[in-house]
């Protein structure tokens, strides 16, 4: 296999590359037929001598994202040489098929690859059987809805929760827009559009020149959501996820992270159109539902790994957590400060605000409060609806975090 490119016309290389591409595609890499042709071209470019060069050639064409390198790497080694490893993989699969529930292998990339190489019956029947959905009126009748609207999510019956979810699905965030430096035609715009002016003047043969005008375009600001799923707020975060699902499918530029003891990006999972399927996918992706919480540590991970990638172009942050940090509050304050510097605006949603006599006493809450722009409740339909409507509009004193810091 080391001298791959020496027999380009044998036709075997073409077939092999094609099969290799199929394996990658099965493992989730976006490899189209055009890439296969490119790969073949590149492999036949005539100057490949070592295995390493062959590796980087295929890598340059078939890998388009950094995170795919891992999968590619394993697939390459399995496919293009080591017959022993293929055997091991077969054996691994065999064990998994015979045992009803095999324990998860350590490497997720390996697992995905294994599933792609051999059709695994286990993966196909993984979808849950959903019971027939009850017919419910999503719009809610007036009197019943008033009670439901103010009710705490945690105190709802299963039936009420389902109704609430339906109502949540209809909530949409008000658009908060920023001016860009691009322009669009507008009769009453402030700027003169010379290109259109001249083109229009030609219609009249240049006799009359009427000015065409334009105005700056606006665009939605990106929104990053950090949602706590630790034991103390997991009930609210489940409801909140339904809300987020609606938003993710409604607008561009949203990124959603869940955190308990570790940080998970679930944006892709939430993009699934069906809400139940999306939530199931999210649950599968997250390992620390209802566990402990390390707000400072996970915020740090966010700041170091993600902030520079997602907090660009004037992004806002929606932080949903109760702020009950069990670890170092100094670190929490440092990380909040850093977050403050890279985000345009931070809105803190705290389910603890459901208590009438809530006071900002906990050390974690006091550490975070100085860095947020708005402090809001998220425990009921009303609070979510309020959030959806007034986020971004100047709300004045109602959600000013300073209000909570003064009394203690």
């Amino acid at each position: 296999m080391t001298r791959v490119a020496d027999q380009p016309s044998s036709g075997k290389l073409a077939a092999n590359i094609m099969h290799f591409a199929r394996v990658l595609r099965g493992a989730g890499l976006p490899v189209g037929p055009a890439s296969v042709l490119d790969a073949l071209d590149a492999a036949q470019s005539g100057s490949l001598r070592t295995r390493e060069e062959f590796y980087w050639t295929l890598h340059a064409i078939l890998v388009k994202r950094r995170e795919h390198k891992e999968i590619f790497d394993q697939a390459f080694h399995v496919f293009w040489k080591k017959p022993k490893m293929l055997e091991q993989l077969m054996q691994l699969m065999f064990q998994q098929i015979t045992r009803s529930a095999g324990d998860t292998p350590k490497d997720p990339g390996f697992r995905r690859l294994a599933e792609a190489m051999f059709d695994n019956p286990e993966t196909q029947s993984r979808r849950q059987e959903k019971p027939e959905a009850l017919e419910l009126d999503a719009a809610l009748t007036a009197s019943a809805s008033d009670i439901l609207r103010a009710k705490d999510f945690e105190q709802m019956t299963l039936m009420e929760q389902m109704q609430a979810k339906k109502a949540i699905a209809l909530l949409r965030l008000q658009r908060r827009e920023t001016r860009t430096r691009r322009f669009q035609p507008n009769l009453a715009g402030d700027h003169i559009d010379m290109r259109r002016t001249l083109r229009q003047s030609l219609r009249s043969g240049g006799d009359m020149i009427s000015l065409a005008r334009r105005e700056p375009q606006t665009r939605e600001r990106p929104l990053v959501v950090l949602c706590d799923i630790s034991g103390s707020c997991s009930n609210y975060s489940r409801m909140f996820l339904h809300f987020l699902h609606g938003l993710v499918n409604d607008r561009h530029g949203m990124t959603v992270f869940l955190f308990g003891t570790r940080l998970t990006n679930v944006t892709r999972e939430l993009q699934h159109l069906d809400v139940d399927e999306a939530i199931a996918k999210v649950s599968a992706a997250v390992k620390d539902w209802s566990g402990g919480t390390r707000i400072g540590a996970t915020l740090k991970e966010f700041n170091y790994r993600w902030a520079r990638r997602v907090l660009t172009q004037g992004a806002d942050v929606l932080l949903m957590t109760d702020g009950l940090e069990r670890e170092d509050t100094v670190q929490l304050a440092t990380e909040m400060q850093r977050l403050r510097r890279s985000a345009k605006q931070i809105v803190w949603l705290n389910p603890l605000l459901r208590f009438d006599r809530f006071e900002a006493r906990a050390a974690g809450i006091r550490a975070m409060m100085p860095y947020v722009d708005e402090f809001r409740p998220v425990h009921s339909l009303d609070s979510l609806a309020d959030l959806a409507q007034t986020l971004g509009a100047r709300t004045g004193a109602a959600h000013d975090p300073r209000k909570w810091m003064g009394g203690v």
Partner: protein
Amino acid sequence: MSAVPKSIDETAALLKANGYVAGRDLATVVFLALKMRRPLFLEGEAGVGKTEIAKVLAEGLGRRLIRLQCYEGLDISSAVYEWNYAAQMIEIRLAEASGELDRKRMGQDIFAERFLIKRALLQALEAPDGIAPVLLIDEIDRTDEAFEAYLLELLSDYQVTIPELGTVKAAEPPIVVITSNRTREVHDALKRRCLYHWVGYPDAKRELEIVKTKRPEAPAALAKEVVAFVQSLRGGDLFKAPGVAETLDWVSALHELDSVTLDPQTVNDTLGVLLKYQDDIVRMEGSEAKRILDQIKDEIRTAATTRVS
């Protein structure tokens, strides 16, 4: 103009001859990009030498470098072309004055190539004397999706469509290098048209080679210590790890200060060259810098003694 290299070895030699120390992986990708006439998409942290590749290619191949720095709101009139409105107005007035107003001809006259102001991307399609330039589209992640989408036509067919004039196609396709710092994910449709490569931090051996190539005046012992220090910083817990560019800056700074070897005081005084975030500097100052310094000096000493014995 020198010819395009014919093998990976030649590519590596070409890069090296122009002061760029590339690994086998990067040389392979650059060779393929030249051979297959595909744009090269380089992604990586700031300061690892992505932009430098385009410069070195232009120099090594004796071609003109056209650079387009991307920013938010970059639009066609500043990146591709613009009509010279003032000249067009004068043309209309002149035609009026001489009384020869023919609408159809006027349309052709007004939107003719002589009224076109060519910007970077359109210039890149020109190949005077058959020598196509190197086009560097720098930090594409800073611009928006709309501009990315506009690039698709240019990158796949090397042509630009101007509604009033028609399609301008490159006689000789330019060598295109696109860089991204990954402050956001660039769309797959654009990446699909390119050869992708992630440029990472170099290992100690290659970084030392880079320092020796780019800063030959610095003492060898100093270079070795600097590289070891920077390498151990990258492994640590920093908000922004220093890139190769910072290493080179630091070597220059230390050399300017006439240091022959690293000592805690100089490190503290010059940390600002290496680290660009206040938190990082505070963390490294004092004892932490000294600890790392002692550690790398130990390592260098052990490496030296084992070689002797």
